[in-house]
């Protein structure tokens, strides 16, 4: 095996200057935290936080048949996308298992912009390339784009101060181009935290200028830089899945409880037949949200889960929720054991602790 080459984003030096603790994530050197995971988490829930998401991948698909082809490759219905609109969707293998979860935006009459997970860029691109008809253009633009996520209840105020002198911000799930110091940047009203916010894509050469500019303006609204640690606790409170943990090539979106993003009525797509079967028979296992009943050790990935003394599944994600101040997580359990309100037990270092199956999301805005 060749040693993995360490990848860095164009903002790495800024993270180091801010005193971030850096960690490896999917081959990338990324900030885990600056002021602390709990502090950053609370900042995003109460004010605004900025994340470097330059590790994520971007593809552009263009050509007259781009829409119909993507509709064969992805689970959600691409035909429903108006110009400048995006949707959450899945790229599946032939067995209906998840290769990746991603957002596809329609950026032109015959042009689409895909934002994929960092650790899946090569695999996604290879899979798409393998199935692509020759008259379509598919480009992996990941090396040319930096990206940040600006998330929190004060995101809209921030946007007005930053880019919104004469233009409205895009609405939920929309993407639009703006000009920042003579460069075109794309701003989408999307995120992975459950708060209002934006994901911004820009040429790597302006990354430092854009980051420092946004931090300077954001200071007025209580903005702090935030790392992958808070990104994970924020998404888990919302029960948003993390590919590689909660999603895998052996799990399909219906088992994960994400059927909302699968259109079984549209024309055929890769993975449709196995999904149709799951839909008809009902999934054998379901991804459920658990909240510990009492204070104690938080659940972690791979901890076994029990119902009435029988093992019924295992955790795929788990942490202490900074908002709820109690252990939370996601687990795949047998469908029969997976009803909302049921009390299961999580085994932690040989001892069983009770946890209730909750309706998703685990965190609800008050």
């Amino acid at each position: 095996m060749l040693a993995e080459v360490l990848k860095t984003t164009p903002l790495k030096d800024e993270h180091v200057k801010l005193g971030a603790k850096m960690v490896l994530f999917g081959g990338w050197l990324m900030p885990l935290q600056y002021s602390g995971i709990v502090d950053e988490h609370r900042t995003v829930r109460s004010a605004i936080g900025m994340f470097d998401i330059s590790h994520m991948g971007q593809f552009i698909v263009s050509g007259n048949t781009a829409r119909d082809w993507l509709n064969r490759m992805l689970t959600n219905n691409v035909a429903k996308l108006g110009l400048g609109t995006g949707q959450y969707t899945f790229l599946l293998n032939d067995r209906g298992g998840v290769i990746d979860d991603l957002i596809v935006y329609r950026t032109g009459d015959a042009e689409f912009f895909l934002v994929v997970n960092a650790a899946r860029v090569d695999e996604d691109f290879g899979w798409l390339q393998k199935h692509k008809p020759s008259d379509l253009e598919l480009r992996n633009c990941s090396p040319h784009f930096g990206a940040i996520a600006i998330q929190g209840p004060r995101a809209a105020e921030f946007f007005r101060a930053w880019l919104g002198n004469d233009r409205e911000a895009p609405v939920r799930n929309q993407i639009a181009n703006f000009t920042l110091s003579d460069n075109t940047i794309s701003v989408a009203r999307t995120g992975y935290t459950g708060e209002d916010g934006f994901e911004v894509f820009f040429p790597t050469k302006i990354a430092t200028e854009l980051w420092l500019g946004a931090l300077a303006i954001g200071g007025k609204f209580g903005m702090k830089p935030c790392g992958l640690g808070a990104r994970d606790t924020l998404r888990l409170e919302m029960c948003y899945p993390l590919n590689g943990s909660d999603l895998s090539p052996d799990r399909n979106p219906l088992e994960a409880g994400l059927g909302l993003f699968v259109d079984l009525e549209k024309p055929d797509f890769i993975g449709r037949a196995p999904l149709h079967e799951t839909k008809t028979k009902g999934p054998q296992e379901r991804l459920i949200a658990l909240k510990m009943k009492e204070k104690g050790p938080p659940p972690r990935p791979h901890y076994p889960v029990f119902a009435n003394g029988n093992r019924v599944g295992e955790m795929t994600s788990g942490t202490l929720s900074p908002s709820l101040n109690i252990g939370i997580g996601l687990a795949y359990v047998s469908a029969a054991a997976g009803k909302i309100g049921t009390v299961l037990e999580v085994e932690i270092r040989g001892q069983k602790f009770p946890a209730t199956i909750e309706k998703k999301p685990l965190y609800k805005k008050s």
Partner: protein
Amino acid sequence: MNVPDALLYTESHEWIKREGENIRVGITDHAQAELTDVVFVEIPKMGRTVNAKEALAVVESVKAASDIYAPVKGTVIDANKALEANPALINTDPYGEGWIFVLKIDNPEDLKTLKDAAAYKQQTS
């Protein structure tokens, strides 16, 4: 990073303070910074006898659970119950209020296997 000269250290980032026949043990400033926000601590049971390098307590951050090891052979004679209510003491005062347990040691000679402050500083630099 703060590495007090008067303490002994392990490779696995515990600090050791000699108190006569006993040792008081916690995790270093470096370790608490690496772990990030501590949210749960499982302290050892009184009277438990342990060998050197045996896992004896668990410190959990938001991110992960980490075992804390007995630096030398001994018996648990005290554990810091304050950590159950306030695990963040490990972050705010790792060498003081954030201590984890006290061992009555079998053989003071065993302490010679531990690192001094200079050696620990070198390990973490």
